[in-house]
């Protein structure tokens, strides 16, 4: 499920705020904890899991993950002078459905099943993917088209924050792409259904590349 993001307009932006590695580590830790806690909640409190009830679990996961991501990434917004923290949060909220639509379209173009019984699953999945890929960028870059292009298309990464957005997003997309491969196999397992293994792939890819960046930074 490879899909790359687009934004609107052009607006020159200068370098973002200075970011210390410890802050970065902390923010990732919080995102990771958010993800983990949502799964913990799903299993232990609501006693649902991704395999048996994908829609409910995915909904729970994105409901928890999205606020965490928006709140944290809004702190790192690039145009600190022009826009307030609240504005960045609003951008993130706006970016969520747009990103979800783009992810869903990409997934459907590549063969995600459609139909009423899959609609909810696809919706929840694409909202979660949006939280991994689109929302952080929307919070940080806003409507600066050049920044979007720099990060996602040219992958010319300048600041730490660029790495922080670009790598996990690519990780999630590539992970999801690889996650789709076991789907046609005839093992007759529930987890082969859309979008369970794709979600696993995306989460794995996201965490993997986050970790890679962290190790790069610590050098």
């Amino acid at each position: 499920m490879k899909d790359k993001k687009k934004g609107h307009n052009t607006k020159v932006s200068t370098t973002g705020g200075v970011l210390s590695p410890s802050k970065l580590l902390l923010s990732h830790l919080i995102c990771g904890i958010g993800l983990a806690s949502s799964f913990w909640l799903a299993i232990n409190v609501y006693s649902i899991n991704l395999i048996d009830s994908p829609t409910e679990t995915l909904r729970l996961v994105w409901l928890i993950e999205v606020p965490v991501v928006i709140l944290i990434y809004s702190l790192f917004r690039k145009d600190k002078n022009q826009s307030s923290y609240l504005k960045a949060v609003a951008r993130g909220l706006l970016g969520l459905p747009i990103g979800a639509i783009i992810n869903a379209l990409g997934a459907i173009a590549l063969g995600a099943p459609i139909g009423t019984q899959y609609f909810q699953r696809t919706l929840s999945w694409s909202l979660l993917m949006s939280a991994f890929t689109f929302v952080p960028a929307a919070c940080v870059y806003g409507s600066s088209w050049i920044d979007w292009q720099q990060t996602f298309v040219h992958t010319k990464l300048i600041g730490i924050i660029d790495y922080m957005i670009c790598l996990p997003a690519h990780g999630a997309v590539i992970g999801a792409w690889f996650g789709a491969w076991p789907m046609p196999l005839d093992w007759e397992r529930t987890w082969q259904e859309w979008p369970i293994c794709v979600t696993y792939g995306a989460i794995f890819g996201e965490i993997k590349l986050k970790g890679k960046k962290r190790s790069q930074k610590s050098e």
Partner: protein
Amino acid sequence: MGVHGVLLCVTSPLCCHTTLHQWFPPHKNRTSTLQSLFTVDRIVIIVLDALRIDFVAPSTFFEEKKPWMDKLQVLHKLASDPESAARIFKAIADPPTTSLQRLKGLTTGGLPTFIDIGNSFGAPAIVEDNLIHQLVANGKRIVMMGDDTWTQLFPNHFNKSYPYPSFNVKDLDTVDNGCISHLVPTLYDDDWDVVIAHFLGVDHAGHIFGVDSAQMIEKLEQYNEQLEKVVEVLQSQSAKGGLHENTLLLVMGDHGQTINGDHGGGTPEEVETSIFAMSLKKPPLPIPSEFDASSCKLDLLGRKVCVSSIQQLDFAATVSALLGIPFPYGSIGGVNPMLYGLVAGTWKNLEEGLSQQKVKEWMQNYAKVLCVNSWQVKRYIDVYTASSVIGFSIDDLKHVEEMYAKAVNTCFLSSVAELARTKFTEFNLRTMGIGFGILFMSIFVHLLFIVKVDRVHKDVFAPNETSPVSFALIVSCVLVAARACSFLSNSYILEEGKMTSFLLGSLGVLSLRHSIMRKKMILEATTFILIISILRFTIELNLSKQGSNEVLDSKMYVADVAPLLPLIILAYMLYKSIASCKWVLKLVITGSIFSYILVALHWILESNLSNMTHPIFDVIKGNVIPRVIYIMGIAQLLSLVVFRFFEEVERAKWGETTMMKGVAMLSSWSSTLMILSGRQGPWIALALVVGGWMISRLKGLEEDQKNAKIGVLACYSSSVTQWSLFGSCLFFCTGHWCAFDGLRYAAAFVGFDEFTIIPQAILLTIETYGFSHILPTLGLPFLVAYNYNSSIKPKQTPHSLIQLFQVYLIYGLIMAITTTFTVLCVIIQRRHLMVWGLFAPKFVFDVVGLILTDVLICLSSLFYFVQT
């Protein structure tokens, strides 16, 4: 260009896969035992082609009552009548479930070999020992009527035969009416011992209309009526001393069919057929309960009907035992106790007595028969093992040996059959190895040339070119490799259509990203992705049709009018394109536009839409229009060939001329293709044109980059990969899939009523491979010739030619790689359960596709390359 030709010739001769050579020494059997045990005098075999089990068994045996069930009421009545010795069997056939294979299997009692499927159309005589041969050798007289496949298989065996041509699937009645007119009169004659009547109506009705259709039900009702007549005649003569005192009636199918009416594979629907057996001798003997493995249920009228199970493999042995003739030499089936026991009441040497005693005696006789049966199978297995290098493993043999020694006859027979089913087909590993080696070599040769051409190109035309490797090249390589490797698994072969569109979609998304990077042609990339999405939905729609019988409701206005719209668009595009070209090409393209009008006319006439009853329409309705279109197509191709030899080479305008030549070439194929593929044709053609155009335009992205500093290989790899994946997508999109039941036989009869092998085979090939192989291969020069930006100065001719050469090489390489992996897969999986159902058809389809592509590459090289 000579190099090219040689290279491709190397690719083509493929592994001739399994030519299992079985030799059959004349044998002396323990005939005396068998002859003393024979139980019936005469057998009437009525074969109803493609008889599903649910046509015969009462609907209560199935989850749901469907309209086609419970139509053969006469069989239910007889099977439920405690006075008559009749029984319904579920017969399980071995795939491949094509008629020819099944007839071979039924008569030889062996398992089919793989290469035979290909021979299904031109049936060669059976060389192995078989039931019919044994019947003749033992002085039995056989009368055959119906399907002419029998006379092809057994040219000199029948005393009398009334064959009717079997291949025209549109014809539901000729064969059946022939059978009907001869069957009943024959039953009154006394100059035969075995009658075989092969009805084809159900098979043909299934192929054309599907199982859930009025025609099918009509056919079944007709059969019911005929069977009633036959039974009446037999029963009227079954008194002591009558003609049919000791006759066995068998009504059987050779294979089943899916709801769509297809067969050939190994799904339960296809392998489960039925045998109904009735002995005219009364009264029936109770069968010892240890052999009675039937399930009984009440039918809709409350009668108790029992259904037993039998392997089709056992048919030859059982019939041989019943008639008291030697078992066919290569038979590995066992005598089925249920079928054998059915006629137990007709023992010649059975005198009046207690039924207990009868049962005991029957048991003894059955044991004797089984003993001979086991001995025969054992001997065959021994000879087989001795004569073949790799057959059964020693462990398996030892196991069989032990069983035989213990004389557990039934166990022995069933385990031999089981073993044989997995291990029987001998694959000639050496031929396979050679074939695979050749393919592998051809890949290397391709690669070598590609690298070489790349280097030549660099030296001559672009000395300052920088990177021979680009991101796009790596991605293409990875995707092609991933696709090839996926063929090693049956699941991915099954889902190949979706897989291909997934990979194509990934490439499309990448080019969208690329176009955003270059800040242009975003629209093109988006359209391309849109086209892929549409293709993807079409593929899924076709996949769902594969399982269920979803006949499009052609009564709708929309269905009739819709295909005309893309047809008009295509014609308009052609019309626009003829503005600037030479008069020959202009003529050819105008011919295509005229053909399109004919296609439209044909469809309007065929639909219910038109009420034009004018006599002139009656004349041209039917076969005239398709034939005119075929002739036009051939004429167009011929004039293109002529044009090729007399054209004046204009070095400067190579690109333009090639474009026009390409348009003319494609358009001359397209009208034929469209009329063959039916109403979806114009849509697919439109998708092909738009998709191809987008790929060509998107290629401009790569070319433009850094003033053509990247190598030709890196430049074209992505587009050619897209092109070939796009072609494969179209294959699935047109409703084909890699199985023999995926062939659209009806297409072979557009414009023809009779079956003659050559034109029909050509039409079928064109229909199957047209959109996926023929058009993409012939259209490949567009990639090179298309100049998206007129401001860039046109390339020199030699430069373009070397690029075209490279493009064809890459295309050939991609096709060769996928086919090589399919071959590898078949070699590895040759003992796999699904080898007949899945891998073998895929193998045949891919190999034919590769050969076709290679031939077309050679031809189009001749057509497009000019002397410089």
